């Protein structure tokens, strides 16, 4: 401890040491930003998945005989459930009216879509006998549909011995952007009752989208709800939002882990170059090591001094690194344009955010700081031990 002020004095007087800090600062800064961006990305993704799917999804079957009212009564008995919305999912194919896609269908001209029957407000169609629909902006772009245009949807009735196709016209009355590519490329939102009638389904719901209170324990409610559902139907199961959007989220988390390892190597290399820096300093300051020995510094004290020096270099590196990271986070858009040569690296039509999301996770930052200190101190042990092996008399003779 008593050597810290001497170490600070050395740090101020020898340019090579602040340069060592700069290497650490760059590593820490970049890693801080990478982790923050990926945390922001996964956080936005989580919000987006929960917004679309709800916290829990109760999947039922078309063979299910339990009424919508029975489900509602069950859900109201759960205090953690704040909202339950029935949804009807069905599959179909969509193409523009008059296009070759529908008149002479070829698979490449049609888009497979998920028909989503919902209770949300859908602007009414302006053409009689045509049903209103909302599609994702990406799907609308892909099909070349504008508000007011009509598209044809081809589907199939269930439970028929022979395939019975269903074909119906839909008018695009609005588009939506969920922020998720997979949602905006293949979803067609239609009034739930109308969809059930068009397809000829007995039931007008296949799923329930459940929202829980903020304090609810997701897994506990999933378990309790699964048990309770057994009393009213055998044809349902409960999934969490992680089960539904988990693959995408895990992919993002895996990507974060991979990039953290890659950029962690920058910190590792910066810490490694500290060995060279300290060895150079020892070579340059042999006389000082002799002086410390002569006035009574033990080998352990000299070792402590070099470790204190390493701590000072690391501390400046970490502090400047965090400042660099925060500055990068605050100016990510400019950084993105700089890297992309004036164009955004994260394509807006794919990622659907108007800014790069950033979320600083301080426990993760603490791990980053501890990791930096541990590796720099470990690497500093080599020069520190070497300094203690220098005989005092030999060191004092150095000019």
């Amino acid at each position, binding site marked *: 401890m008593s050597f810290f002020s001497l170490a600070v004095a050395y740090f101020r*007087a020898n340019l090579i040491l602040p340069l060592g800090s700069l290497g650490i600062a760059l590593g820490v800064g970049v890693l801080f930003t990478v982790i923050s961006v990926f945390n922001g990305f996964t956080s936005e993704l989580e919000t987006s998945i929960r917004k679309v799917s709800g916290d829990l999804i109760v999947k039922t079957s078309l063979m299910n005989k339990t009424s919508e009212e029975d489900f509602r009564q069950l859900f109201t008995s759960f205090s953690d459930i704040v909202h339950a919305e029935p949804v009807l999912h069905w599959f179909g194919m969509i193409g523009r009216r008059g296009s070759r896609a529908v008149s002479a269908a070829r698979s490449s001209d049609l888009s497979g879509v998920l028909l989503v029957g919902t209770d949300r407000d859908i602007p009414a169609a302006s053409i009689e006998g045509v049903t209103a629909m909302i599609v994702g902006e990406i799907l609308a772009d892909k099909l070349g549909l504008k508000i007011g245009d009509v598209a044809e949807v081809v589907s199939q009735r269930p439970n028929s011995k022979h395939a019975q196709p269903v074909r119906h016209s839909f008018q695009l009355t609005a588009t939506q952007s969920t922020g998720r590519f997979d949602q905006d490329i293949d979803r067609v939102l239609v009034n739930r009752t109308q969809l059930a009638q068009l397809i000829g389904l007995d039931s007008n719901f296949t799923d329930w989208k459940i929202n829980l209170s903020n304090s609810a324990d997701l897994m506990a409610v999933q378990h309790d709800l699964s048990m309770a559902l057994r009393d009213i139907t055998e044809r349902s199961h409960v999934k969490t939002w992680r089960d539904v959007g988990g693959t995408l989220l895990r992919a993002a988390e895996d990507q974060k882990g991979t990039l953290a390892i890659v950029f962690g190597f920058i910190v590792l290399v910066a810490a490694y170059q500290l060995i060279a820096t300290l060895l150079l300093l020892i070579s340059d300051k042999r006389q000082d090591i002799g002086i410390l020995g002569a006035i009574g510094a033990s080998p352990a004290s000299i070792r402590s001094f070099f470790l204190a020096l390493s701590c000072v270099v690391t501390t400046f590196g970490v502090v400047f690194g965090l400042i660099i990271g925060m500055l990068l986070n605050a100016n990510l858009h400019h950084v993105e344009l700089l890297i992309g040569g004036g164009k955004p690296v994260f394509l807006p039509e794919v990622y659907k955010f108007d800014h790069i999301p950033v979320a600083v996770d301080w426990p993760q930052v603490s791990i980053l700081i501890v990791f930096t200190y541990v590796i720099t101190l470990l690497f500093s042990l080599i020069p520190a031990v070497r300094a203690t092996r220098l005989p005092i008399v030999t060191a004092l003779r150095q000019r």
Partner: protein
Amino acid sequence: MHSDTTNSSTPLLRATGLSKSYKMGRGSLQVLQSLDFELQRAEVCAVMGSSGSGKSTLLQILGLMDSCDSGSIEFNAKEISKLSAKKSAMLRAEQLGFVFQQFHLIHELSALENVLLPRRVACGLSWFSKRQAEYHAARQLLHEVGLEERMTHRPSQLSGGEQQRVAIARALISSPPLILADEPTGNLDSETGGRILELLLKMARERSTSVLLATHDSAVAAMCDRTIHLSDGQIVD
């Protein structure tokens, strides 16, 4: 700071049969040969001899900065030549003061911080509870050596004489019973050297501190209580 619990009639320092040689290619150079030496408490003794006579080696061995091939060293009637590195360092920090020809100050530190350095080393973690008193003592010493206006100056901003004054203050900060001075005026002009030596001896005598001083200058030796002459690694009269 030193405490003396031994009988005042026993010598402060006693070296018996000290020998030291250095390997020189296939052969070896004998620097000290079965040297016997005693230094009394509060005594100022000059070690004279030509270059290569072994003066500096003797001081380095007595100061536990180097080891001897054979012989023993007693300090305050305790054998110290076989101490561990840690105990040797502790003894140097608390019982010995050093003044070198080259001053050997740390250039990154101010005069005040250089004077305080032995106390930082000796105190370890207790430094923080003692720092007020230590700072006071260091300022007092710098005042005594006439550098009260130069405390915050770095060695590069001080003259040779001023640097050696800082080194003297540093040697005295722990109030050691013994100061080992290796040609303390060797890097100074005769006028400055004379003043520095007067200062060192005055301060040592005021504190009853023993001084063992290596020099090849008979004028310097004349200011000491006793002079021994080294030749071929042995004391000659």
